């Protein structure tokens, strides 16, 4: 039995220890906010936070998450009460098809909680591992910067 904390709640996982974290989250914990893009660590769509750091959940067997804290997009806000970052994406058009959005949100969330630098270059560097085929990135960067300014 693998024990881990997901979005602040203690969870146990009794399935195959080499199941990918993304599959455990989606299939066993019913947290389908995390999306799979490429499945090879290039696109960042499946980004979740592992002990506060962004990681690709498609590249982590769940056995490596034992005793660790996982945060997914479901930890940010609810449809009724969005987080500031989610509200920023809504206000600035940071999401189009939406597949990259949960990963973008989690990477941006970790960045703003960490260094919190909200100049264009810092945000672009922080989000370099999250690919988007729709927006051309401008509005995503704007969303993060506007949310960061709102947070201050």
């Amino acid at each position, binding site marked *: 039995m693998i024990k881990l904390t997901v979005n602040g709640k203690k969870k146990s996982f009794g399935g195959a220890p080499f199941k990918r974290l993304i599959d455990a989250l989606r299939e066993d914990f019913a947290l389908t906010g995390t999306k799979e893009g490429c499945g090879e*660590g290039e696109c960042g769509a499946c980004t979740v936070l592992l002990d506060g750091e962004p990681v690709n959940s498609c590249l982590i067997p769940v056995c*490596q998450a034992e005793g660790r804290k996982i945060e997914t997009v479901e930890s940010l806000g609810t449809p009724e009460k969005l987080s500031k970052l989610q509200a920023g994406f809504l206000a600035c058009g940071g999401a189009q098809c939406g597949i990259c959005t949960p990963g973008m949100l989690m990477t941006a969330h970790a960045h703003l909680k960490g260094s919190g630098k909200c100049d264009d270059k810092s945000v672009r560097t922080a989000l370099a*591992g999250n690919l988007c085929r729709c927006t051309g990135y401008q509005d995503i960067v704007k969303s993060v910067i506007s949310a960061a300014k709102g947070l201050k």
Partner: protein
Amino acid sequence: MRGDAKSMTVLTPRSGAEAVKAFAKAPKALPLAGGTDLMVGWNMGWINGRTVLDLSRVNEWKKISVVSDGVDLGSLVTHTQIQNHPILKKRFPLLVAACATVGAAQIQNRGTIGGNIANASPAGDTFPALAVYEATVRVVGPNGRRAVPISEIFAGVKKTTLQAGELIEAVFLPFCETPTRGVFRKVGTRAAQAISKTMFAGLIWTAKNGELTGARLAFGSLAPTVKRLYAVEGFLRGRRLNDVSISAAAELLTNDVSPIDDIRSTREYRLVVSRNLLIAFLKGEVK
């Protein structure tokens, strides 16, 4: 065919000694560190049915220790840990710069220095820096410990000189005199998430009279393994850097490297860009 989790056996040693023992009992096991490469293959279904030696609980290999003559990086130290370490930033800035070019944050947070070496990609981002800092790879196995110079750890594409049952426990970086100039450059299709077409690390030391007293130069992605430019280094030693000596030195580049055409680039492009990089570095034009 995707990875089939049920087909996998996972071994979970809790210390370096346990890891060596477990590996001796399961010699075909695949050592797993940060998983940023191994898991890609697994997702493709390439390693179904295998046993994995998951090293992620070996906490003693996750530390950075500063000692009198250098810095010891545990093999499970991540690229992010390296970038954040104050002594590494000050004394080994080329390695820090290299770690910042590995994939992007998600990969840097998981990928480890030991995993990077054991994986032995010709394009391993940390290798040119490790080569010019003359790192030593500390290895542990059923017959005890040994220290392998970075120049002897790679045997070819995706091949190391590690013996059966051996695991990397640390990478030692000896302190060097502060160089007159040091640069790391990675050239890829884009800044993040790209595998390099060519990669350069260079350190030079000059005397007050302008004579070069030492040079350590290395390229990655231009041969099956990282290459020090011994011919160029030897030629430059004792000379003053000027247009004549620099262009003569650049002519010696192909003594040590042998780039190929592949999906990422061509031999010709790699050679032109690499020669330009070398010349620009020696002229002090790249920072």
